[in-house]
């Protein structure tokens, strides 16, 4: 079931996660993340898939009282990104994220994409301009915005804003990109654009995507993980999960009998 010829980019090992109120949202999750592949996390609301995703860039550290146990080990350096000695900022420098609702800064299109470079102390204007162009091209947005880079990002449509957020996440050359239901606020055409983009992006980086949309998982992902009540119920390559799931619960969820 698990492909051994593809290199691992990261893997979660016995990951437990507790919210500040004591609720255990993840229970001993073990899952590989293969390099240059798209892994989809599916499961009903509240199953812990977003919680799991947000462990990868330590977003939970922003709110006091949250607690991790176990680890998420990145390769090739074998760093456990959840280890107490690892700075969450360093983790976020390597792993970028695209959110559910487009969340551009109230700044210009250019400033939005360049922000990650600004944070990394890049001062060379030429380098910044090149990187911004490259990222916008990578996010398939360049042609639409190249003449109005100094417009405010809020003037873009919802789909364009989401691609802008992808460009922002891309500009800093991340190793892994996390997508938290990236198309749930978008119309079908914008959704198709984003999905196409993800398929291209995986040539450069590794993608982990949370989705509520079963068809989306089937269309874009190479591997799929089904989560339920904080546990990883089933993991495998997407074709297998969607055609011959080994567990009854997975099949029920995928076929819409439950969820």
């Amino acid at each position, binding site marked *: 079931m698990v492909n051994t010829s593809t290199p691992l980019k990261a893997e979660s090992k016995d990951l437990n996660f507790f919210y500040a109120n004591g609720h255990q949202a993840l229970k001993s999750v073990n899952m590989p993340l293969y390099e240059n592949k798209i892994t989809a996390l599916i499961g009903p609301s509240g199953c812990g898939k977003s919680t799991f995703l947000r462990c990868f*860039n330590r*977003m939970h550290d*922003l709110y*006091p009282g949250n607690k991790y146990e176990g680890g998420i080990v990145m390769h090739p350096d074998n760093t456990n990104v959840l280890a107490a000695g690892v700075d969450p*900022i*360093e983790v*976020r*420098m390597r792993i*970028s*994220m695209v*959110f559910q*609702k487009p*969340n*551009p*800064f*109230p700044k210009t299109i250019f400033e939005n994409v360049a*922000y*990650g470079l*600004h*944070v*990394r102390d890049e001062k060379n204007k030429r380098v910044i301009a090149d990187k911004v162009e490259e990222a916008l091209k990578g996010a398939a947005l360049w042609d639409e915005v190249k003449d109005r880079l100094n417009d*405010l990002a*809020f003037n873009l449509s919802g789909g364009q804003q989401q691609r802008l*957020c992808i460009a*922002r*996440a891309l500009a*800093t050359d991340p190793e892994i990109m996390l997508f938290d239901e990236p198309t749930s606020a978008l119309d079908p055409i914008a959704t198709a654009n984003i999905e196409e983009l993800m398929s291209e992006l995986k040539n450069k980086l590794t993608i982990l995507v949370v989705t509520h949309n079963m068809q989306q998982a089937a269309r874009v992902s190479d591997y799929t993980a089904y989560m339920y009540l904080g546990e990883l119920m089933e993991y495998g390559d997407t074709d297998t999960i969607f055609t011959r799931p080994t567990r009854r619960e997975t099949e029920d969820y995928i076929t819409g009998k439950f969820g």
Partner: protein
Amino acid sequence: MALHDSQIAGALTKASVLENLGAVRAMIRRHKRNDIVFAGIGLLALMLGLLTLLTLFIDLVMDGYPRFNLQFLSEFPSRRAGSAGLLSAWVGSALIMIVTFLTAVPVGVAAGVYLEEYAPKNWFSDLIEINVSNLAGVPSIIYGLLALGLFVYGLDLGQSILTAGLTLGLLILPIVIVSTREAIRGIPVAIREAAYAVGATKWQVVSDHVVKYSQGGILTGVIIGMSRAIGETAPIITIGALTFIAFLPPSPISDVAPYLNFEWLSSSFTVLPIQMFNWLSRPDHAFHINAAATGAIIIMLTLLMNGTAIYLRYQIRKNIKW
């Protein structure tokens, strides 16, 4: 409303539908009466406050009308009401406002940002939070007493512009802190997370985003605080402002490098509301005209400052949508 018999029976004849419709319409009319009643009471309540203020303002303007001229602003106070002016008072007020602004804004914004972004959330920060809100309600004369002890005697700053500016700065500090915090809280979590997600540190998030996007709200708080400070009388009297001053403090701008001098900070002073109080306490009616004119000017100044706050907030918010 009780269900009609025919509805219960399930057979809706034309007659029963019409009868039922009539009952529904009567009910809606009855319910809507409450809207009309409340709108009337609300309007009355609004007018009560607004008309009182307006009457007061018109009265002041009418009384003070003879003194609305440039001479009133360019003359020192005098024994003769007709040639007495506001020069020392408005210059005093303006210089004090500069000191107030320069102290309250950096301190207030820093405190607000710290409380909102850096302070650990526990019982101690809750306690501080409650106290900051309470400070905004402390009577201003208490600040005057504090300033008398601390600035005038303790730090030996004298009965100076610096003392007055610091006192008023302290007075409006809670307003600046509270408005800073409210403005910061208005920034959506999603924007913060977006910044953190690209690898920003807390300070980068604060300086590149939090402070920038809350500028409008902070500015509004600062100006509203300042417009309160400009009308404050009690703490200024407590620290010993003079009521009759026929000279100006040394100019803050000098003609030799570094083109600034700070002697004005230690000068004695008077301010608009004290000048007004002084004229008002005289038996001669002619001085009361001066007092009315000063009152009208203070109100206009306050309205102007609040108007500026609204305009600036609109200008800044225009580019921010969430």
